[in-house]
């Protein structure tokens, strides 16, 4: 099984990296950009019962893979 996890800065939190990438894209001539957010992407290959794995990944996201103070996460299991 593969867990695909995305971790993004919370909306209310400053995302200097996103801002910087946005202005770089604008300098390169891309238009119409409203916002850019930069976060992390993790792929975890893992064996086990799907429901249990789902719980484990969720817990791991909360405890280790994201920083709940400043980040949100989402994941899918395939």
């Amino acid at each position: 099984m593969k867990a695909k996890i995305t971790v993004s800065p919370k909306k209310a939190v400053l995302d200097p990296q996103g801002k910087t990438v946005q202005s770089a894209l604008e300098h390169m001539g891309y238009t119409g950009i409203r916002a850019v957010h930069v976060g992390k992407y993790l792929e975890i290959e893992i064996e086990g019962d799907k429901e249990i794995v789902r719980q484990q990944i969720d817990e791991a996201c909360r405890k280790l893979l994201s920083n709940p103070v400043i980040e949100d996460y989402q994941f899918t299991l395939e």
Partner: protein
Amino acid sequence: MNFAVLQFPASNCDQDAVHVLKNVLGHSARLLWHKENSLGDVDGVLIPGGFSYGDYLRTGAIARFSPIMKAVQLFAENGGMVLGICNGFQILCEAGLLPGALVRNRSLQFCCERVHLKVATTRSGFTRAIPENKLLQIPIAHGDGCYFADESTLGELQKNDQILFQYATPQGMLTDAANPNGSLLNIAGICNKNRNVAGMMPHPERASEGWLGGTDGRLIFESWLQELTGRNKPSAT
């Protein structure tokens, strides 16, 4: 000689490079803002260390799109000598002027310390003044200094004698323990095939005055100066 030291937003070793070229080595060096389109009348270009654009996204990724980089590209194509130090090395790789890429240190930590460097070849305009078999002591200070290139590129680098510096033990051995960041082949610095563009993670400008704990870095600038003497100026736009 006339040197241009490029200044990107948050270059922060720019002034250090000017200081060494000017006050220590007695040449002319000036800062050149990244929004400029032309290098002006220069003999050499130095891309200094720092955190251009905050190192956001990837080190050197954004800086390489600055207007001045077009001029640097042209200068290099015409044989002009370009040295990238630390962030400068990262920018040159991103810009495709040097092969490979620099990724996160394998320790995942920023690392600032003096290291030993084996000079893999003195057959380059950046190493020619270094005495044969001399081990250099030069500081590093980076979080993304792990050199990566695919097998065939590495093969090319070796075949063409493009590897300039490698992390070594105090005895000159290329061991894993001597490698501060996980670079393939312990690579600390390379040059391009034409040997006029070079990049290195260690900071020679921080090892150019005795009071700061060593002068081995000076040998690199002196090599460059030797090479430039008696060369024709490449056309710079």
